[in-house]
């Protein structure tokens, strides 16, 4: 005790992908619209107008077709280059408000405002500045723990009277209890739909119920994670602010295909693109992987088709991050597993046993082939400069069948010269 209450702010962008699309399309300001996931499958972001019309988060787009036609709801394919650039701008602006912050996701950032004078003014200034400087509307929730900051953000979003900023710390104990009694437990960070049902069976319906629940029972029934959540709701910080993201221990790259794939070369081609992507991530964090796993999947929603979901992993002869070397293994594993007469919907690779490049252990039998370090550096530099996929590994991208369906993608307004918006 003795340390002052944390003033942890969670800044969350409103309907982020939709807001990004609107930055360069003022004509869409009040149009009902959605952004779709990879392959234009499901709704991943909705404008308030689309939400009001009854479009659900995660809903498959084909289910919305009728509603969409009726109300002329616009749909965009996801344009990750645009979202990433605008996200970086938002995060960079936020980082100037306080020395400690954590970029939590593409559209969320924790900012530690503890000890910052004029908290109220600063919170509104954050919201106003991000809005003016990027065009992305954000809400700010402040609390003593991450979980309560997230909950405060939920309140800021839901209640227009908050004008986009809500500070849980500013409430009296009675106000706090009253507020938590009116928020369903499923709104708490980390409590999913499944857990909500289980909690309800134990009579825990609201956030207040969860906060006050019997500790030993909660731990016995739901484990330590739920106990942590409960403590966070009781204003005891259990989840630290992570300013530096730890290096990844496992890299997974997988995609659903635009069309079903039946031929081996097409699968290998897709895998080589995944390998290139995963190895670039390895190189960016100066590490290498010792194990590669490849998996293939048929379409599990098509019960009428034969199903086959093989997966195979092998240790690499020596840890590497060389796209060419890893690709040979991916192609070999794929060939081993491949069976004709199946229609593949998805494939992916997993790189694991990741360690820093500086820890390299030689192998007595396998000759130490130095990976094409300089070649890979040049490749990364070119792809960085001219866009991903400018320089590819041999087979990568020779076939089009597997690639993502993005029929409704907006231009790369901020990252490609030819796509710069006209005004």
């Amino acid at each position, binding site marked *: 005790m003795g340390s002052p209450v944390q003033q942890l702010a969670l800044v969350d962008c409103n309907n982020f992908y939709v807001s990004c699309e609107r930055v360069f399309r003022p004509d869409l300001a009040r149009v009902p619209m959605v952004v779709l996931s990879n392959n234009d499958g499901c709704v991943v972001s909705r404008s308030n107008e689309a939400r009001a019309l009854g479009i659900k988060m995660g809903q498959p787009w084909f289910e919305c077709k009728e509603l969409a036609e009726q109300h002329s709801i616009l749909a965009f394919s996801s344009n990750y280059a645009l979202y990433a650039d605008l996200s970086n701008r938002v995060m960079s602006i936020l980082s100037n408000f306080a020395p400690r912050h954590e970029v939590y996701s593409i559209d969320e950032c924790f900012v530690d405002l503890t000890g910052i004078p004029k908290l109220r003014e600063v919170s509104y200034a954050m919201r106003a500045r991000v809005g*003016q400087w*990027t065009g992305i509307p954000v809400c700010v929730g402040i609390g003593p723990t991450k979980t309560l900051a997230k909950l405060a953000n939920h309140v800021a979003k839901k209640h227009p009277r908050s004008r986009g900023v809500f500070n849980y710390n500013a409430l009296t104990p009675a106000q706090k209890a009253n507020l938590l009694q009116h928020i369903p437990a499923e709104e708490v960070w980390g409590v999913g739909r499944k857990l909500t049902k289980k909690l309800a069976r134990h009579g825990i319906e609201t956030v207040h119920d969860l906060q006050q629940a019997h500790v030993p029972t909660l731990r016995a029934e739901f484990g330590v994670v739920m106990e942590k959540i409960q403590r966070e709701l009781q204003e005891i910080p259990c989840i630290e602010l992570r300013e530096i993201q730890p290096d990844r221990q496992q890299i997974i790259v997988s995609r659903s295909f635009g069309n079903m794939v039946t031929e081996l070369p097409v699968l290998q081609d897709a895998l080589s693109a995944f390998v290139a992507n995963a190895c670039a991530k390895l190189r960016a964090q100066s590490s290498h992987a010792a194990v590669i796993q490849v998996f293939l999947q048929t379409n599990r929603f098509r019960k009428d088709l034969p199903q086959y979901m093989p997966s195979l992993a092998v240790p690499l002869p020596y840890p590497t991050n060389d796209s060419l070397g890893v690709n040979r293994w991916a192609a070999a594993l794929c060939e081993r597993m491949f069976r004709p007469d199946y229609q593949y919907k998805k494939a992916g690779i997993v790189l694991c046993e990741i360690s820093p490049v500086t820890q390299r252990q030689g192998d007595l039998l396998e000759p130490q082939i130095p990976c094409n370090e300089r070649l890979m550096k040049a490749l990364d530099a070119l792809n960085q400069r001219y866009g991903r996929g400018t320089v590819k590994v041999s087979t990568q991208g020779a076939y089009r069948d597997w690639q993502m369906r993005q029929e409704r993608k907006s231009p790369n307004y901020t990252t490609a010269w030819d796509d*710069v918006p006209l005004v």
Partner: protein
Amino acid sequence: MKAALDSPPQPVFIPEQKAWLQVCGWKVPAGFPSPAADHTRKRIDLNERLIRNGDTTYVLKVKGDSMIDIGIYEGDALLVDRSLDARHGNIVLAVLNNEFTVKRLHKRGGVIKLIPENTRYPTITVKEGEEFDVWGVVTYNLHKLY
């Protein structure tokens, strides 16, 4: 037999950065050091010159000819900074009734006008009830000459 170690062996990190000895690419006449050696400066960086705040600056291309009298032509690339306060007389990218337009901003006595720089176009006075917003202030025009 148990190894006589009180802690597990630790990997030794070898720093990835290598030390390079820079070798001059040009021949140095023995006895006479290059007279320019003490005067090298960083080359001019256009990003640094033209962009005050990278996080808030965007490139947009011009459509139309309403600003040709001050040399803003169709196809020119404008640098637009959203972090600047739009003042009277600035060239701005405005959003009027949900549409982009580049004009000179007139802001006097509570009246907002958008002034074109082409005599063939009329000045637009923003009327009450119209939706108006300044998207950003135009800071540079990049016009291709070659």
